[in-house]
């Protein structure tokens, strides 16, 4: 199979507009968690979320008007706007502007989302009830469909290759990057714009995930402390929003055009728990098998893994199950392993999580630093793995593994390696 490398990255996150803004805020130990604004929160069990820092576009704030005209924004849910913003940044970073027909048909898009246009569906349901079917906009359907993120990006940049979208809950972003890398490896495309996007934050999603008992509810008065993976006081995840998009490119294609190469995607593994709709299998077998599959594909040994960007959502069950699965995977190499959860800083971006975390893993390789796990005061776990509490750790990182696990028992692991 052909080699696949990352040549561009783009992101909008609760810690800022753009990859570099977000990354410097992560390394500075900042949290994106706040009391959400824009809707009534008083009666919600969880009153913490990581919303984008909206603003005029200066000082790292995100201004949707810089991405799409207001007229276009009205037609779509925010997850599409975020995807377009992240894809614009990634393609500019990669300096890839396909203009010839040949370049266009060999460039594709695979941007997924966990739940797509939930906010717009909620609003349209009210309109249907109050005003009747004749008041439903012709843009209601195309502005909510998950694959329209890929659609908008392809139309905007003339990307005529494979056009696809992944929907695997919180594994979406990782699956999208892994699947897109496969398409490049197999020759279906030379370049794929891949990632995940999500704009869930509102009363409906906060109520729904709280009903699943998945969200933190004990830190409503101290939002920045709510996302605390591995800490004994953790009590659920903090919902985030945003998008992460990478440009994946066939290695020789990238080299031939002198593209900057961040890292190579050397491993991708998938598995199913076949256990429960929301809970991870207690023995961590699903996580173990997907990491094993990625390692096998990468042809590396446990000792080769320097850094793990954990799924680590800050739920009581999930964090420890993942940790034990990794200990089982690496055995004696646990001693030298470093693992952190960047969800402690940006929250859980659901369908975008795997994509932003693959980018953080790539940046960890680029900058030789492991981002911290915020709020890890008193670990509930006893482990030899360094969980990078509170401050970043300078270290040699050649190989990074990023995990994502989703509702339905769907698991994905990506392995990235520095390119000499």
């Amino acid at each position, binding site marked *: 199979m052909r080699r696949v490398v990352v040549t561009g990255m783009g992101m909008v996150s609760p810690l800022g507009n753009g990859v570099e803004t977000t990354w410097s805020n992560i390394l500075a130990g900042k949290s994106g968690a706040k009391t959400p604004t824009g809707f009534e929160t008083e009666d919600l069990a969880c009153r913490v979320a990581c919303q984008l820092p909206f603003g005029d576009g200066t000082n790292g704030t995100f201004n949707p008007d810089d991405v799409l*005209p*207001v*007229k*276009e924004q009205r037609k779509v849910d925010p997850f599409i706007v975020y995807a377009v913003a992240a894809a614009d940044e990634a393609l500019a970073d990669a300096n890839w502007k396909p203009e010839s027909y040949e370049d266009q048909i060999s460039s594709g898009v695979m941007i997924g989302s966990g739940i797509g246009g939930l906010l717009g569906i909620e609003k349209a349901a009210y309109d249907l009830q109050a005003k009747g079917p*004749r008041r439903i906009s*012709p843009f209601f359907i195309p502005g909510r469909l998950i694959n329209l993120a890929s659609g908008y990006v392809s139309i905007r940049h003339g990307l005529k290759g494979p056009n696809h979208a992944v929907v695997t809950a919180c594994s979406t972003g990782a699956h999208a990057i892994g699947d897109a890398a496969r398409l490049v490896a197999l020759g279906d495309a030379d370049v794929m714009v891949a990632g995940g996007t999500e704009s869930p934050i509102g009363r409906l999603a906060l109520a729904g995930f709280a009903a699943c008992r998945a969200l933190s509810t004990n830190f409503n008065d101290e939002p920045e402390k709510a996302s605390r993976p591995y800490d004994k006081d953790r009590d659920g995840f903090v919902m985030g929003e945003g998008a992460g998009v990478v440009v994946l490119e066939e290695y020789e294609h990238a080299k031939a055009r002198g593209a900057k190469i961040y890292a190579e995607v050397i491993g991708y593994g998938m598995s199913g728990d076949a256990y429960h709709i929301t809970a991870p299998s207690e023995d961590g077998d699903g996580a173990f098998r997907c990491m094993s599959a990625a390692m096998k594909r990468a042809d590396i040994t446990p000792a080769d893994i320097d850094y793990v960007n954990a799924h680590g959502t800050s739920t009581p069950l999930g964090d420890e199950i993942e940790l034990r699965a990794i200990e089982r995977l690496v055995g004696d190499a646990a001693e030298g392993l470093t693992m952190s959860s960047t969800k402690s800083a940006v929250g859980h971006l659901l369908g975008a999580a795997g994509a932003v975390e693959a980018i953080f893993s790539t940046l960890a390789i680029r900058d030789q630093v492991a981002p911290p796990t915020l709020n890890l005061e008193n670990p509930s776990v006893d482990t030899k793995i360094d969980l990078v509490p509170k401050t970043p750790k300078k270290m040699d990182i050649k190989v990074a593994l990023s995990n994502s696990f989703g509702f339905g028992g769907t698991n994905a692991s990506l392995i990235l390696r520095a390119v000499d």
Partner: protein
Amino acid sequence: MSDIAERVKKIVIEHLGVDAEKVTESASFIDDLGADSLDTVELVMAFEEEFGTEIPDDAAETIQTVGDAVSFLTKAAN
């Protein structure tokens, strides 16, 4: 311009995001104002809402220009 024409013009400017001077009586939504077929469906819905009237689908298909909309809505108002 009549009151109806002013209100039509305002809706067109808002929904299609175009400059006011382009929105003349003879301007075609699709050929002159950059609308696609879905935009025109939404425009008709906005006219219905603004003027509290129902525009049947076969009538909606005949509304291609700003002037078409004004004359339809003027007739409907009488």
